[in-house]
């Protein structure tokens, strides 16, 4: 009983902190609104690069076997939206932590009476990724309007798989942060994981089975774009649903690795 009350209070406290951090992030964005709008606009325009290769492939009369243009765009739109959400919610953690490690100022975060990873995540919420999400959403709407009708069950399946994909993004983000405790100041860390995520941008049946097994169950990047889109196309098979578990395990692995690696941090007072 006592534990439940304490747990409830703790949860309330964390929700309040997260809410305050979001308010601060919005206030910051409004203070530098021109920069914020420009960042979002550039994000939106950069987004056009992503489906460009697919558009040019189909424009030249070629195709991915058994995939129409709009079906591939649906995969890429889901991937873009997920990236947009990750940019807003988790991707700022790496740069903030890296800065703290280089400057030796992580103590400022560590001495606070909240979980370090939670505080780092909450305080780096950044709405400049909203442009990317919106760009993905527009692409998603266009692609969806060109594929077959979507039932409520398919939409529900999409939602579950899409959320699982966001958890993969979270896991990737936290693994990168954990790595930055050992590989100090390496700004190319995201490139490593971006290259692995690249597999998730395309229909998985174009890859060798060993690769699609890796992208479904080991580092489940197929869940970021491919599986959610497959659900909307009525092609989500049992593998898609089995792959949900590795997504949550992967996110958990990211959190645990962070908790382990933070012990490597050495500072002398910030």
């Amino acid at each position: 009983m006592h534990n439940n009350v304490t747990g409830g209070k703790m949860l309330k406290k964390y929700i309040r902190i997260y809410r305050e951090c979001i308010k601060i992030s919005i206030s910051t964005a409004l203070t530098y609104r021109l920069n914020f709008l420009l960042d979002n606009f550039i994000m939106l325009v950069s987004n056009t690069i992503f489906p460009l290769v697919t558009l040019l492939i189909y424009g030249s009369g070629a195709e991915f076997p058994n995939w129409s243009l709009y079906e591939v765009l649906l995969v890429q739109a889901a991937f873009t939206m997920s990236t947009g959400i990750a940019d807003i919610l988790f991707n700022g953690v790496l740069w903030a932590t890296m800065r703290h490690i280089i400057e030796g100022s992580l103590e400022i975060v560590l001495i606070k009476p909240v979980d370090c990873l939670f505080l780092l995540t909450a305080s780096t919420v950044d709405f400049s990724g909203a442009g990317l999400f919106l760009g993905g959403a527009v692409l998603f709407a266009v692609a969806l309007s060109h594929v077959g009708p979507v039932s409520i069950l398919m939409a529900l399946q999409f939602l579950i798989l899409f959320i699982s994909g966001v958890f993969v993004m979270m896991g990737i983000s936290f693994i990168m942060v954990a790595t930055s405790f050992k590989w100090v100041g390496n700004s190319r860390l995201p490139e490593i994981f971006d290259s692995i995520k690249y597999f998730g941008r395309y229909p998985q049946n174009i890859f060798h089975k060993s690769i699609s097994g890796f992208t479904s169950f080991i580092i489940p990047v197929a869940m970021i774009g491919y599986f959610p889109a497959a659900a909307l196309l009525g092609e989500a098979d049992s593998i898609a649903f089995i792959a949900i578990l590795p997504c949550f395990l992967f996110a958990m692995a990211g959190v645990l690795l962070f908790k382990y690696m933070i012990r490597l941090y050495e500072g002398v007072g910030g």
Partner: protein
Amino acid sequence: MVGAEMINYLAKKLKVIKAVALVTYKEWSAYRTHSMVSIFVGPVYFIVQYFIWSAVYSGKASLNGMELSQMLTYFGVTTLIGYLTMDFADWNLQMLVRTGKFLTFALRPIHHRFFALSQKIGHRILGLFFEFLPCLFIFVFIFKINLRPASYGWAIISVALAFLMNLYLNYTIGMTAFWLVQASGVRRVYLLLQGIFSGGLIPLVFFPPLIQKLMLFLPFQYVSYVPAMVFIGRYTLAGVSMPIPHIVGLQAIAVALTALFSEYVYRLSMKRFTGVGA
């Protein structure tokens, strides 16, 4: 007499290049594992490209005049050329202007662009050892990609010109900081355009004919597409085919014009620049 002066002048310049390049090489050697990230990233991207294009070419012998083997060579070559020509003179110059540190360079008896060129040579020699060569071995011996240039001589000249072109373009973009101070937005827009129109994403012959015609008059193709096509041994864009010596000649003219434009903007920049202390 004039010949001797010229030799002295060149010897002095070479001495500066050697000194700055060596220091830059040593400085960045401390972070060589950062460069070595490419040994993982380059092949992984290549594997994705391999499966994408193998799927796209299924049942097709050629697309836009390119066979699958040429397409894979194209992506292998553009990746490797990227390691040799990579440049961040724009970021560096903007940082120097914004922080006021450019003043220390303005006072030195050496043109800052020449200094940036010397730094880039040192930095890319590091890239040669820790990015280019390991990835070359992986592409050739593991992926079995044919990376033998059609003509070694023209390929080397074209890559050298791409090296200079990338520097001049980036440096010119960096100089916008003399007017804007915080020019990261301009830089991002430029990098976006360069990403699309240089041919790094996809060979330019895949673009619609109108855009291909436009690209003939833009400098971006000389950074990646032209050296890659020179490497493969045939150049076509917007229906215009050219023998290799002609396109390399055109690339040299484009580099010279960009260098002149860069110098013009540099002189305008120096009229605007004011610095105190630093």
